Every structure is written in structure tokens, then in C-alpha cells.
């Protein structure tokens, strides 16, 4: 009885979280300039219209560049930090870890204005894509760190001791054991960092100079009703791309070593 009720609920739940989002691709192929029912017929003209819009393509390229750089930098910083957190005992670890997780609980608008203040008023640096990237590294780091920490925590600490015992130096142990074991975590950290930066709006909105990132461009378009069809098409493309990346990241992270720890899921 209750089992049935819950199953029905689960179906509604999935419909609730996916429904509104799927409205975008649905209307993006509707042959109308408004997002209204009834549907007017199938078309791809809104997609065709996107091609050749220079500001859009520029914004896309900017976002790709930032996301790629940010994900590599955040992961490169997070890997040694995750090893320290999972494999080393040191005083003040909880405090340090809390501090690193702080961006999760600070509203992004506060982070954005704080960075804005220090960049403009204290350092006197011009806003640019570089300042956006700097902000994105900060918000990606806790996510990358969490993914890597949970990956490394899933392994018996005795593995590294066994490696040392079998004659490997700490460096060799890292390359022959820790790195391959963390591999899926590293890849998914890269992908998550990429997605977070690629989709991030508020910090980019405050910290960008004359150039736009894709979400900032998209936001500017949301205000114009007559650019709605193009926005729907662009949004659908972004949805498809980020969904593909997330699924890839999750599948990779789950592959390889199985763990009984539900925290790994």
C-alpha cells in the first residue's frame, strides 16, 4: 500500500523537477514566436537563427575558455588538498576544512561584491574575464575538494602503507597508487568544475568587464520578449550540453572501485 503511494510520489517528483526545464526544448522547436499552447508545429528555425550571432559566439568562446581554465586550476589545487585532508593528521584540520567549504554557504552575491570591492577599490585592477575566472575558482574549489575527498576516503589507508611497505617512496606511491585510484574522482572534479564555471551567472555578472560570458549574455537576452525563441533554443543547447557532461561525470565517478560506503554515491 505505502509502497505504491511512494512510487506514485516518486514519479510526480521526477515530473516536477524535470517538467519546467523540459518546457524550454519543447517550445524551442515550436513554430511560433511565443512560448504558448497550443503548439504551432515543428521547426528548427530558432536554432538556425542562433548561428552567426557574433555576440553569442563570442560569449560562448569566453565561457569555454574560463570553464576549462578554472576546472584545471581548481582540480590541481584540490588534489593535494584532498590528500592532506584524508591522509594526514594535522592540528586545526576541521577549521581549515570549514574555511575551504565556506563558499558553499556564502550567498554568491556577497562573494561577487566582496571580490568586486577588492579588485576595484583595493587593487585597482580592471574587470575582465580574468577576474571572472578568479571568482569561479573560489566557488569550484569546495566542490572539487568534496568529490576528491570522498573518492580518497573510500580507500583503506592500509593501501598506502602496503605500498610503502613494498618499497615505494611517497612520490612513487602517489603515482602508482593514489593517482590511479583517484583517477575517476579527478576526471569528475574536472567536469564538475567545468560545469559550475560554465553555468555560473552572478559572479560573472559582477566581475566581467566589457566581455560577456554565455550566462551573462543569456541573462541580457531574457529581458527582451522578441528574442525569446532564440533564447529558448540557446537554453536548450546549454541544457543538453551540461546534462551530457554531468551524466558523464557521474558515470565516471561511479565506475572502478566499488565501495560499501553509501556516502560515495
Amino acid at each position, binding site marked *: 500500500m505505502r509502497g505504491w503511494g511512494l512510487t506514485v510520489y516518486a514519479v510526480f*517528483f521526477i515530473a516536477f523537477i524535470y517538467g519546467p526545464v523540459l518546457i524550454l526544448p519543447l517550445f524551442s522547436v515550436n513554430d511560433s514566436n511565443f512560448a504558448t499552447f497550443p503548439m504551432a508545429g515543428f521547426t528548427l528555425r530558432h536554432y538556425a537563427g542562433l548561428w552567426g550571432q557574433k555576440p553569442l559566439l563570442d560569449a560562448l568562446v569566453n565561457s569555454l575558455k574560463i570553464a576549462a581554465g578554472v576546472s584545471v586550476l581548481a582540480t590541481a589545487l584540490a588534489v*593535494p588538498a584532498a590528500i592532506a585532508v584524508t591522509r594526514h*593528521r*594535522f592540528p586545526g*584540520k576541521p577549521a581549515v576544512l570549514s574555511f575551504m567549504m565556506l563558499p558553499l554557504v556564502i550567498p554568491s552575491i556577497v562573494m561577487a561584491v566582496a571580490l568586486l*570591492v577588492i579588485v576595484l*577599490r583595493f587593487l585597482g585592477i580592471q574587470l575582465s574575464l580574468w577576474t571572472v575566472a578568479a571568482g569561479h575558482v573560489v566557488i569550484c574549489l569546495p566542490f572539487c575538494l568534496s568529490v576528491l575527498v570522498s573518492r580518497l576516503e573510500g580507500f583503506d589507508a592500509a593501501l598506502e602503507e602496503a605500498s610503502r611497505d613494498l618499497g615505494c617512496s611517497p612520490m612513487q606511491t602517489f603515482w602508482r597508487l593514489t593517482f590511479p585510484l583517484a583517477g575517476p574522482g579527478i576526471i569528475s572534479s574536472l567536469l564538475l568544475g567545468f560545469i559550475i564555471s560554465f553555468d555560473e551567472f552572478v559572479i560573472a555578472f559582477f566581475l566581467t568587464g566589457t566581455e560577456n560570458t554565455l550566462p551573462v549574455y543569456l541573462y541580457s537576452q531574457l529581458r527582451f520578449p522578441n528574442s525569446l525563441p532564440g533564447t529558448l533554443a540557446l537554453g536548450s543547447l546549454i*541544457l543538453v550540453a551540461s546534462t551530457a557532461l554531468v551524466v558523464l561525470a557521474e558515470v565516471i565517478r561511479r565506475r572502478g572501485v566499488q565501495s560499501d560506503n*553509501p556516502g560515495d554515491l
Partner: protein
Amino acid sequence: MVEVADTAARAGLLGPRRGRDPGRRREALTGFGLLSPALLLMIAMLALPLAALIVLSFWTQSGFTLDRTPTLANYWRLIEPSDREIVWMGIHFHLAYPVPAILIIKSLVMSLTATVATILLAYPMAYFLAFRVKRNKAAWIILLTVPFWTSYLLRVFSWKVVLGFNGAINSGLMSLGIIDQPLDFLLYNPGAVMITLAHSWVSFIVLPIYVSLEKIDRTMLEAASDLGDSKWKRFRRITLPLSMPGTISAALLVFIPTVGDYVTPELVGGPGGTMIGSLVQQLFTKQNNAPMGAAVSIVMMLIIGSLVLIFLTLIGYWRMRARRAS
């Protein structure tokens, strides 16, 4: 994102270890060495900017001139009394500048409502996933995780398309002949903001709750039944209390950032659905009063922080957590 909730929770909860042992020194130094690049970056780009924000909040701006004399003027202005009375939602404000106070209270209430809705929506789903789904759990988990990682902006925007005057619901109901006129109360109000916030965060919160349910030893449930509990009683006496710490820490990860959310109220809130984030943005841009904006941001974070601490203390969270750990 389970790891995030987990790692964040663990951060504050492991007691400091005493380590006088000289053998530990080297380990600790290597640990700090490995951590230092990330730590330095976070200090440079998180701690210093926040410090700068605090410094700025003690300065004052009038027109285009920034006065660097340290003063509490901005903070005073936020609570400065006045004879003028403004009534908002039945609350009387005797403030010279009541907008921040009103918006902070409004943001807290809206965010709290959205958070509660999020938990109520997510808990049964997490329960289903933990206790009913036997096969393809990984697929379910991915299905539930994916929406959170797709563009926040687009998820909010999609509600604008759904709820709008010429949106999907209105046009759908009209074409079905259920209504003649578009319903104009759907969009641009606090309700729309709260629905959108709940929708945006619900896929974030299912997994942490699921993990806290999944970790419950099944033999404990069998023991409860064996001792005479009905299914419902067993849920109330075992499952719910054991999953509470995980659920609460997940809820905080929703509540804290949503208070300062900017995108959602801007896109679907309309004039009535404005929240504190929009004020901060305006102070920094249109109103050209960054010091006041800094003060509002800091007061907002202090209020959120103290509310969370009071809440956790009231419910005995740390005790609860320690008991689970043992």
C-alpha cells in the same frame, strides 16, 4: 551533492586532536604543505575580499566621493529610528531607512518557507530511494542529481515561461477552455519566487537525506518491529530521528545561500518578490553606495549565521550528531 554536505558537516564536527608527539610533526607539516596552495588561494580570494568588504562597510559614500574615515554610520543608518511609521505585513517599522530591514525579514521568511517546502518534497523521495528502490539505484541517483547541475539561470527562467502571463500554464488552460482570461497572479510575486527556489534546490537536497537514511542499520528497524512498533511508529521513533542530523545539515545548505539569492527574485519575483540580494546589487550599481551595500551584506550574513547557530543550539544538533557518531 552528498559529498559536499558530508564534508561540510564533518568540517565543524571533528574535535581538535591533541598532538604533542614529535612523530606527528612531520606528518602535520606535509599536510599543511599539500594544503597550502588551495589554502593560500582561498585566503587571497575569499578571506581578503570579505575583509575588504568589512573595511568598506565602515567607510561612507556621498555622491561620487568616498570618505575613508572609519565610522559606524552605515550600520547606524540600518537601525536609525524615525517618527515616520511604515507598516509592512502587520509589522510596524519606525525606521528612517526601513527598506533593508524589511527586505531582510522578507528574504528570511521566503527562504525559510522554500527550505521547508524543499525538505517536505525531498524527504519522501529520499525515503523511496533508500527503502524501496532495489535495482538501478545509481541510475535513479543520476536522474535526481542531473537537474541541479544544469544551469541555475535556465531553471529559473523556465518558471518564467511556465508561469508567465503568456506562459505555458495560462495558454494551456485557455486552449483547454478552462479559463477565459490569463491568470495574472502566477508570476511576479513572492509565491513564484518560493516555488522556483524550492524547485531549484530540491534536487540538491534529496541525496544528502538519502545518504542519512541509507546509513541506518536495517537490523535496527527489524529490532524496532520485533519490539512491537508498527511501521509508522517505527518510522517516527527510529528512522526519522536517525536521519535528522543529515536532513538538517542539508536543509542549512539550502537555507543559507537562498536568503541572498539574486537571480530568482529578479526573474520571477517582480516588484513584490524582491529580496535582499537585489538591494545589495542596486546599492553597488545604480545607487552608487557600495559602503552601504557592504554593510547590508555583512548584516545579512551575521543574521543568517546567528539564526543558524541559535537554531542548532535549540534543537541540540551537536549532541544529536555526537550520538550518531558513537
